[in-house]
């Protein structure tokens, strides 16, 4: 029997020209499906989507002329062609004016630091080089709207940082392109995005500027607690406390005196609730290793909107 899964459910949002918008959510939330619908690689079963005023279903060809997409994970390139051949091929598919092809290809390769290896086959490239070449491919048609689907997936920290800076400064600020970024790296979204939308189980659950969303978060403070001897009962009873808005458990790799450490993020109404929370943990025979009170981060928002209480 085939199970029908509703990948997206009444997702509704707008992105302004020249904006860098982040679509955030856990794996399987519907981020890639949204991107693929907007760049015409998937056809929705219902509803409407427009890119620069063009209907993605009825005017797909007009949409394809003005968009491009970069996906993480080393796909969308011909490994047996050189970097330069890949770009020239895609320049032909996009009908880039012939007199501009060489300059544009060389310019993009230079911008991404690939000039020295431009005539090597892509199969000889490192993962980071392939991803940079993907960005070149994504910009080959000088798109008005660029879709970035987890573009830094699996990249070294430095390369990912350079890529983020390039997209933010060059592509959006200098060239004024509109960018839709999907990621589940919250620091990436925090660093890059003008606005973000949180998507969970196919539904858009929150949208806005990161600072606005943080301000409007039901609980203004989070206590991050590292704890050993944590039990399910302790978590359940903590959730029942009136001062606690939300409790999230996350993976934490570490041990203290041979005991596994768990990480809890507890959303509380105000800082005065902290002693009560810690007292409760002690009463439940949990050993608190450390705690840290802080204002909400994008990660807290992510957990708040996409995680379970």
């Amino acid at each position, binding site marked *: 029997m085939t199970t029908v899964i509703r990948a997206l459910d009444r997702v509704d949002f707008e992105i302004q020209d020249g904006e860098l918008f982040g679509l955030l959510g856990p794996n399987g939330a519907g981020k890639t499906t949204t991107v693929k619908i907007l760049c015409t690689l998937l*056809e929705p079963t219902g509803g409407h989507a427009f890119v620069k005023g063009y209907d993605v279903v009825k005017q797909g060809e007009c949409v394809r002329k003005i968009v491009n997409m970069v996906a993480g994970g080393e796909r969308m390139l011909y490994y047996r062609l050189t970097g330069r051949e890949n770009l020239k*091929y895609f320049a*032909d598919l996009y009908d880039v004016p012939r007199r501009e092809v060489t300059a544009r290809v060389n310019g993009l390769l230079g911008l991404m630091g690939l000039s020295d290896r431009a005539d090597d086959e892509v199969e000889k490239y490192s993962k980071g080089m392939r991803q940079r070449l993907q960005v070149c491919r994504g910009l080959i048609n000088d798109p008005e709207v660029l879709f970035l689907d987890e573009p830094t997936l699996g990249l070294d920290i430095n390369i990912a940082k350079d890529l983020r800076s390039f997209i933010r400064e060059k592509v959006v600020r200098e060239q004024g392109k509109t960018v839709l970024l999907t990621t589940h790296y919250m620091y990436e979204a925090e660093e890059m995005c003008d606005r973000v939308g949180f998507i969970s189980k196919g539904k858009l659950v929150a949208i806005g500027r990161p600072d606005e969303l943080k301000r409007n978060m039901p609980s203004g403070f989070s206590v991050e607690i590292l704890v050993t001897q944590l039990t399910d009962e302790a978590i359940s009873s903590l959730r029942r406390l009136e001062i606690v808005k939300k409790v999230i458990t996350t993976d934490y790799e570490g041990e203290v005196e041979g005991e596994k450490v768990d990480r809890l993020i507890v959303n509380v109404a105000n800082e005065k609730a902290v002693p009560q929370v810690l007292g409760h943990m002690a009463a439940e025979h949990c050993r608190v290793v450390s705690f840290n009170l802080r204002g909400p981060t994008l990660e807290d928002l992510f957990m708040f909107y996409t995680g379970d209480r």
Partner: protein
Amino acid sequence: MFARVVLAEAVKSLRVYFFSARTFFWALALPLGNGLYLYFLYLPFAKNSVNLQFNSGTYTLDLVGFTIVGQLLYSFFTMMLLAGASFDSERWQGTLEAVLLSPANRVAILLGGALANAVNYMWMLIALVLSWIAIIHVNIRVTDYFALVLSLVLSYLAMVTLGMCLETADIYSKRGSILTGWLQEPVMFLSGQVFPLQSMPGFLLPFSYLLPLTFGLMAVRLTLLGGASMLNVATALAALASMVIIFFTLSMLLANYAEKRAKQKATLTEF
């Protein structure tokens, strides 16, 4: 724009195939080996003949020539089946989405891919020439060179456009290349590749006449080996020309349909 995409797609497909000196070597070596194989296979039958009936005329053809033409045109047909399968590898590589993300004309992409495989077939022609030089026993009887050239060109175009239609099956479905396996044996049988068509049970003949390979084999064999003129093979040439138009039109319609369905069923990627 159309011609630019056709050329880009054909060059890319060939580059992806001929990606190293080793692939060049084998591309040349294998047809040469095939030529030698043909030589020794048909040597015992040299000087034998076969009768071929077409349009109420009977032509006596050299048996070795009959068989070699059959084998080479059939090889071309299988090359066109492989043109379809190339989209399957694009899906595996994740490049199918990158190609269809562009606004490039879909028929131009199909044509480019099919032409690349047709160019690959040229290596088979080398085998043909070398085989025939070796097998000097083959009795070639050409009286109308224009009819021969037209037969070759129309056979070539009919199978290229058929290849375009088959490519759409691979855009449509992740399992489109299964068609390759399904079609090979029936086409070999129905087209009269290995025996004269008049030996076929009558009720199967309508199926034979649906295949471009049937008319291609008839036209090329008769003009090359049977001394047939344009008038003698006019029916076969007309059928081939009609098929070129039908397959090309069909590929345009199927390309749009296949892409739309693949986007609805999310089958442009393997995983």
